[in-house]
């Protein structure tokens, strides 16, 4: 004869109880308890993270090497054309740059692009929230502070430091919807806010209708209202349209770097 259990003795009831207790703890639990726990965990486990990330990047490189063999020929042709175009452009910019330096010296401005940089390797990525976070192997011991800008190559902005631990730090990428940075279009000098679109890309928003936006124009940081230095490249404009309330102009921004392929970054500690 089957034994009939009471509802409170069933697995379903126990699962429900555990679920609701956890929900209450997570919803109303004090955040300040988690912060020191997270700091200890991230510090103690940073060697683990480094080992795993190095192996993952090496495997990723091998995979990209084999998958890119077919594209080498077309890439080579494209890069040769690009090289010639850049040679011409470089010659033109060399002259302009020299003139710019002289003018800056005359009016007593600091030289542009002179930053104190700290190099860091990526040791973790977060898939929750559509992967808008990365962890790097530099923390407060290396002089990294919250709010510092994170760049790749020669000044392409990818995000800001959001959380600092002793040996690691967490970077909020520009593609995070909570990331807001003031930007300027280089050619037309239109200003707006660069914000993330849930990991899908970047949006140049809040641009006045009186300003002009041009497809292909580069967007750089304006240096207004924050720790982000002026003149860091964010990306190029594409797909211009009006906002849903028709008050402002918007445009999607294509970043020159793929956030999911980055391996090393630089943290701007201060501008010289």
């Amino acid at each position, binding site marked *: 004869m089957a034994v009939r259990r009471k509802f409170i003795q069933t697995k379903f009831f126990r*699962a429900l109880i555990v679920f609701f207790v956890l929900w209450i703890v997570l919803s109303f639990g004090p955040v300040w308890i988690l912060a020191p726990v997270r700091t200890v965990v991230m510090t103690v486990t940073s060697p683990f993270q480094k080992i795993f990330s190095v192996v993952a990047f090496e495997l990723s490189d091998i995979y990209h090497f084999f998958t890119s063999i077919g594209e080498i020929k077309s890439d080579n042709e494209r890069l040769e054309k690009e090289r010639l175009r850049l040679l011409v452009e470089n010659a033109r910019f060399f002259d302009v740059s020299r003139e710019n330096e002289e003018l800056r010296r005359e009016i007593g401005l600091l030289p542009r692009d002179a930053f104190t940089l700290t190099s860091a390797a990526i040791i973790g990525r977060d*898939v929750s929230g559509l992967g808008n976070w990365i*962890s790097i192997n530099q923390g407060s011991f290396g002089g990294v502070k919250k709010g510092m800008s994170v760049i790749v190559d020669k000044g392409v902005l990818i995000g800001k430091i959001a959380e600092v631990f002793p040996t690691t730090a967490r970077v909020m990428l520009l593609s995070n919807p909570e990331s807001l940075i003031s930007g300027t279009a280089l050619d037309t000098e239109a200003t707006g806010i660069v914000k993330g679109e849930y990991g899908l890309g970047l949006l140049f928003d809040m641009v006045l209708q009186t300003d002009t936006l041009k497809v292909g124009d580069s967007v750089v940081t304006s240096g207004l209202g924050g720790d982000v230095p002026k003149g860091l490249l964010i990306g190029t404009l594409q797909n211009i349209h009006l906002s849903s309330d028709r008050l402002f102009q918007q445009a999607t921004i294509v970043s020159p770097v793929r956030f999911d392929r980055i391996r090393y970054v630089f943290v701007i500690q201060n501008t010289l």
Partner: protein
Amino acid sequence: MKIFFLRLLFIFVLVFFEFSFLDILFPWISAPIVLIDSIVAWALLVSFPRVLFMTIPLTAFFDIVSPESQGILTLYAVLLVYMMSFLSRRLLLEYRGINMALYALLSSLGVLGFTFFEFIFSQGNPFLWTKEIVATLSFLVPFRDVFFSMLLCIPLFICVYFLIRWFEKYMDFIVQGETLQMK
């Protein structure tokens, strides 16, 4: 004490395998698939109330490490463990051969479930959603990434299942050794 530290180390390895290896190697994956596989594997190997003692620390640890998770995986783990426990007792299938493929498939459905669960819980009160928000969310769910995550979850489940089975046997062996020594 030795058992506690070994279990903690195992949890560390699983979480950082996910966070610092798999998420870097496959940046397009939309859910912590190794952890979901582990939850399913544990639910199949260990009885219901006991399984929570491993899965809750595992997921809570991931939620501590992950800034955007906000405890969502821990909540989801409880539901997933219950569902797997419920299904495995009713399906009455052995954990081998083609039956393993069925469990791997259930695990990949767990990945799909997590994606929707995450959207529901991370976007505020779902009862207040307007048509626009629902339309935006349906646009934002990267279906291609979810599909590939589900595919990747299947072979990984087999590896994770055997790894956890070996680990649980090893733990039992240590417990037995300690008990016999005491006697």
